């Protein structure tokens, strides 16, 4: 095999590798249209935080009770009276709150965070409780007792609030990359973790709040596994470049 032929074969292999990689990664649409996890509620707590301000460097914690599982986790029953399914987010370090004036309404408040770890537990008995003024004897402990079924890291988490919505509402979201847990294989695709979006609405309306928490969040997790652009086989792909 002379030099030019070897270069041609190498080039074909290179193109093939790039193409297969591209086919494997092109995200046309998420494999799941609905949420894999839905919760109602979760509560946020952070030292010295208010719905309008977060101190740079302070850590945000979130505890939540899962109410519904969707595919591929729909073999779990969130209503099982003998168990609770809970999650605990920690390690979210505040970058402080940016204030954006919006006359004549008022102000928007946006707080971004660095880092973050999410842990989802299956516990027995059903004992998770949002006791006031966390951390305390039951928070976060009743949200972390049990089997760790999923864990992951949070990226680009933020919340948005304002001082003019009549019903005290905003939103929060961040991206999760799953890294472990008993059901990690359920949220991975071709042995690679699928990203998830943590998203939903926030409220700080007093009638729904528990003392000592900053926000009440009703949200969900979507599994954004990319799907290939077109089903194929190695043979077919190779044929294209022969």
């Amino acid at each position, binding site marked *: 095999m002379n030099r030019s032929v070897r270069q041609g074969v190498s080039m074909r292999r290179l193109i093939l590798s790039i193409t297969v990689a591209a086919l494997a990664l092109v995200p046309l649409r*998420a494999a799941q249209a609905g949420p894999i996890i839905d919760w*109602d509620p979760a509560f946020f707590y952070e030292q010295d935080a208010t719905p309008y301000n977060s101190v740079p460097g302070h850590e945000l914690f979130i505890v939540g009770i899962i109410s519904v599982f969707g595919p591929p986790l729909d073999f779990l029953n969130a209503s099982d009276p003998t168990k609770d399914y809970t999650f605990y987010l920690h390690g979210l370090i505040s970058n402080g709150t940016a204030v954006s004036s919006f006359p004549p309404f008022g102000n928007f408040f946006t707080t971004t965070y660095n880092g973050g770890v999410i842990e989802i537990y299956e516990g027995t008995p059903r004992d998770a409780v949002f006791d006031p003024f966390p951390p305390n004897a039951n928070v976060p402990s009743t949200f972390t007792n049990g089997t760790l079924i999923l864990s992951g890291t949070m990226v680009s988490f933020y919340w948005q609030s304002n001082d003019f*919505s009549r019903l005290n509402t905003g*939103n929060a979201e961040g991206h999760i990359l799953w890294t472990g847990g008993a059901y990690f294989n359920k949220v991975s695709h071709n042995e690679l973790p699928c990203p998830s979006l943590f*998203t939903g609405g926030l409220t700080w*309306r007093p009638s729904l709040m528990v003392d000592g928490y900053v926000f009440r969040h009703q949200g969900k997790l979507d599994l954004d596994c990319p799907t290939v652009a077109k089903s194929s086989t190695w043979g077919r792909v190779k044929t294209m470049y022969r």
Partner: protein
Amino acid sequence: MRRFATTLLLVAGIAGSVAISPARAQEQVLLDYFGFDFESPIVVPNTFGGVGNGYVGLGEVPLINPPLVADYANFQYSYRITGLTAISRLVNGDFVVVDYGGPGTLTIYEDSKTSGTPLDYGSNPPNATAPSTFIDGTPILIGTLTSFRFIYSTFSGSGSYESDFTIVGGTQLANIPVPQRAGWQFAGVTKNTLSVPDGYAHQVKGEAMIPAPTPTRSSSWGQLKRIYR
């Protein structure tokens, strides 16, 4: 005087029960929903919330709490928000505030899992399956939406909406006591997921709240009279 005071208290109570005023009014979550939204009709193209554009939300209702009754083993539950028209759109930097007129309507439908139609968002709504597959069941709850406001950031691609929610109809209307029919609802919205079908604007995750029942404590005539003797 004692008798007069006792009589007043007994009249204020209901059938021997005394209402205990909570420290602050409490609310309860009636239902939780998720889905997607789109605009129809579109008066101002390529401008979400353009004045005159209609707002529509479609989706599933995975959680329904008492006093409503749900049977998830045999039925699927869906929702539609409709009847809202943008009347004001203000932009400041990355932030947009859109106010809607109406009133709009939030309707919850119950449809058989065996004989009903599977929910199908399709693409570029309205289309052959959306909203039709979401609204072909029994409307179990109908509520009007007023003071509907949509707030979002074009930078983050996310935001929220909120409105008053007054329950006015549906086959389960009688399950909701009259004092609990004036509630509210809100949602988080985002574009930051691959799951948004083509032609839809945002993914939506919302919930509706109603006032909690007034707490009561059982008592007897004798116990009441003793307080004032």
